[in-house]
């Protein structure tokens, strides 16, 4: 069963990622991206990272993707489809870039010293995660929090700039 599930999820990720990149319509691309994010969430579950998977859905699908679609809708006029224009030279260049990247990544994957072994289910991932976040990784956690707060403030400042 496990193999079938993995293949289905991986296929979902690859196919939707392909559509995300190639779809000329931005909203369609965003919908395809949703599939990718779901697939990645599924893969997380597969790696016994269920909390991460749920968080991925909450933040990326429920939050960031909504904002992306929101942005696309706001910046275009209704009735006019958002089309990404592409031309042959671009395709050639991007194809080359993708090829180089693919070869590079494949090379890295081939040479990386992977740990091979049985995956062991961790009971209570949430608890472990919470404990390590508030003990060992407390500083990282706080710094990340401050960084996010700063970006929040910056966004609010930019949005309110209108009156000043």
């Amino acid at each position, binding site marked *: 069963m496990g193999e079938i599930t993995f293949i289905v999820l991986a296929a979902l990720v690859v196919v939707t990622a392909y559509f995300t990149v190639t779809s000329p319509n931005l909203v369609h691309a965003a919908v395809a991206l949703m599939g990718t994010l779901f697939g990645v969430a599924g893969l997380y579950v597969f790696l016994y990272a269920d*909390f991460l998977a749920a968080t991925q859905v909450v933040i990326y699908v*429920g939050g960031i993707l909504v904002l992306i679609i929101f942005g696309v*809708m706001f910046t275009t006029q209704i009735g006019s489809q958002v089309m990404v224009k592409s031309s042959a030279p671009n395709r050639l260049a991007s194809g080359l870039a993708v090829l180089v990247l693919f070869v590079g990544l494949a090379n890295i994957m081939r040479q990386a010293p992977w740990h091979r072994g049985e995956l062991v289910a961790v009971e209570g991932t949430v608890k472990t995660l919470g404990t390590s976040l508030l003990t060992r990784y407390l500083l990282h956690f706080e710094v990340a929090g401050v960084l996010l707060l700063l970006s929040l403030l910056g966004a609010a400042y930019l949005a309110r700039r209108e009156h000043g």
Partner: protein
Amino acid sequence: MTSFTDFLTTGLLGLSWVPDSAWAGGVLAVAILLGLAVFTLMALNAMVAVYFERKVSAFMQDRLGPMEVGLFGFRGGKRFWGGIGQTVADAVKLVIKEDTIPADSDPRLFRFAPFLIFGAAFCAFIGIPVGYGLVISDFNIGILYVTAISSVGVIGIILTGWASNNKWSLYGAMRSAAQIISYELPLGLSLLLVVMVVGSLQFHDIVAWQEEHRWFLIHSPFTMVAFLIFFMSGVAEVNRTPFDLPESESELVAGFMTEYSGFRWAIFFLSEYANMAIISLMTAIVFLGGWLSPVGSLLRLLGVPEGWYYLDGPIWGVFWIMGKVAFFIFVMMWFRWTWPRLRVDQLMYTAWKVFIPFSLANIFFVGVWELVFG
């Protein structure tokens, strides 16, 4: 009790009791059967709730509501049971009605989006117990799973608004997106406080905790506030009055579903009532002891020794949880047929300047409360 990982590793739909070596087709068949069960539950819920809503609104508005269509020869007359077959007739009508798709719409998204909304509600049902042990898969991260999946529905709403190629729909979609994202925060924060006390994200653990101690509604003043915030935010999440701005019929005609008709439109209603049921179920489980009977909980609270007949148990449990859900759905209907609607900025004000600060303060105070009394 399966972990969420087992849910995916043992099968496409978490079937923990199916052995790992089972034939894939068999797993799929069981999964489809369970899916059908959830779908039936949703459809039944919608049909009963629609009938209930009509009768509730009618009696609140000094009229009788549907009273013509009967069922199996039963008419019911001018009483509550009058017109009992009305929703069945409506369902039949909606299914066979012409399904119009606007010429300038985005036809693929137009067709797909309602099912995304429906799918979100459907998947959420997988993780919510409707009685002790009566759950398709009781994940160890149940609460997080339900909130995560429910938040996907908003994408469907935005896409319907965008795909309809109608300015009113677009306004409805934009309002909806802003509203649902905003209200998810107080909703999540209120749940967080319960999770903090219990120490688990699993629905069964939360109810077990309440069985041992007391319902969260009366646990402390702060949890009571959290309950109010949670329920009001839940009403906002499912777009019911006074937060029904995305579909406000007097402003945006029908908001994001203006262009829909027939079966696709029925899907919206199915999802809306399913979402109402989800929010009511979560409120009942998290704050009102789920399937615990009020009688038993009260007796236990008063220190009556174990062994009494508490009206608890699996079957009574379903009765109690469904009673609580029915009550909350009724309250939502009561809101709808009493109050006018808020304006967009007032809606945002309520979320960001009232609910969220209160929720944040609540978390702190509950922490202090637990340190002192816990």
